[in-house]
């Protein structure tokens, strides 16, 4: 019945939505930033633990759609162990993939995040996928104020 949506709602997305990874409050986090999409009301709080330049741990709390929940769940997994510069680079590649700026999907660069490539066909949903990453960007730049997609 939902043939058109298989690209967007892949099984991995449902899995992360049902069982989000790293879904908890982090005590003694080095960075904590709120992300908010005022258009839809999606809210998340991102926590990071840093060791020098390395992101040693990441977790989140919040409430959002399957796309935004899966995106932040995947992101918190994939950035662990990465340097801040590597995480920023991943954000750039992810952004290009989800907005369709870069047609070719560099599987090597995005890895598991490729399951979110389907949002490029759904302009109304791109912000659901990128909210987590905008919040990460603010956290890495150590901005204290909440992030808004608008």
């Amino acid at each position, binding site marked *: 019945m939902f043939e058109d949506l298989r690209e967007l709602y892949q099984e991995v997305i449902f899995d992360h939505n049902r069982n989000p990874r790293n879904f908890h409050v982090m005590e003694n986090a080095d960075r904590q930033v709120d992300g908010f999409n005022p258009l839809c009301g999606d809210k998340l709080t991102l926590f990071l633990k840093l060791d020098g330049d390395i992101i040693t741990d990441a977790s989140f709390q919040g409430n959002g*759609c399957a*796309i935004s929940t899966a995106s932040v769940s995947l992101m918190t997994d994939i950035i662990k162990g990465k340097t801040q510069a590597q995480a920023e680079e991943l954000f750039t590649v992810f952004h290009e993939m989800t907005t369709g700026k870069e047609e070719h999907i560099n599987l090597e660069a995005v890895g598991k995040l490729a399951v979110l490539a389907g949002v490029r066909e759904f302009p109304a949903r791109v912000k659901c996928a990128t909210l987590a990453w905008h919040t990460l960007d603010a956290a890495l730049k150590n901005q204290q104020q909440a992030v808004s997609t608008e």
Partner: protein
Amino acid sequence: MTYPIEQIRADFPILNEKIRNKPLVYLDNAASCQKPQAVIDSMVKLYSHDYANVHRGVHTLSVRSTDQMESARHKIKTFINAASDKEIIFVRGATEAVNLIAQTYGRANIHAGDEIIITAMEHHSNIVPWQMLCEQTGAILKVAPMNLAGELLMDEFEQLLSTKTKFVAVVHTSNALGTLNPVEKIIKLPHAKNIPVMLDGAQAIPHTAVDVQKLDCDFYVFSGHKLYGPSGVGVLYGKQALLEAMPPYQGGGDMIRTVSFEKSTYAGLPYKFEAGTPAIAEIIGLGAAVDYLNTIGMQAIADHEASLLAYATQQAQQIDGLKIIGEAKEKGAILSFTLGRIHPHDIGTMLDSLGIAIRAGHHCAMPVMEFYQVPATARASFAMYNTKAEIDVLISGIQNLIEMFG
């Protein structure tokens, strides 16, 4: 007489659209209604044969445009049974009308320590303009609470009314919940204390007959695009004596009598509040929408929509895990709901792939979402052209998406 649903559907060309190769099922009417051919034709005819600026030229086209625009004003005056055409002010929409009242009536009459009463179910457009006025004047905004069904608590509303109360602004039908407020009573209570009352009718007027003299409200505001008319035009109704006493909103052309660099004098009603070239074609299109609605009859439309809502509610209640948000006894044709952990945005995208348009989000009523402790709801809202068969498509879509989500 049976309701002419086939004829009505044929009058709305967009209903023939295919969305993702499926017939369109348009259930986002509380956000905006679709337009009958008569409205589209009226604007095409104007631009093709009769268009020029209004109230200015002596030439033929200016006279034609002016006549058609003023005729639209008169149609709207009759539609809501205002006492005079002078009481019909054209604005951009309900939002601008509320801002106009707050910044003219409000700035002139509401001062530090005075209180303005709204309700817990208001749209942002009937919250923020009053907050801005409170910031400017030092007045205080009071919010009358509602119960879990989404009904205004009348006793608490009454208790809020005091000698400090200088204005009451209440939604006629809530866009997020569907609640149809007991407006006669809501108007009578403040009037007993000489407090003026504004009704936000944006969500009510497309679905129910409105008689502003019978209601005795001081102001009534609505948007054209929700009344099957064009976007970019709305109406502020106000009692003539109040409008006369209010200072102008914006300055410019059309709203003046004389201008010199020392002092300008203002035009009479309704032009005092209509600075600049108005939305001429949109106003004329709104007049055509009112003509069209009159051929069907607002009571017939209200009855049709009531049967749609009853059917949709009964069907929705059969779905496991579906929770209806807003269960007032008196409701407009709005079905707001949540599906447990399936987020409304996912519901919206999934239904869209089946050709079904609903709204997902906070419906510009964040305090209402806060009250129900949900980030958002999905909302199906019905109009004169919807059918029970379309509700069946919606219900089957919801059942299937629940299955897909697993």
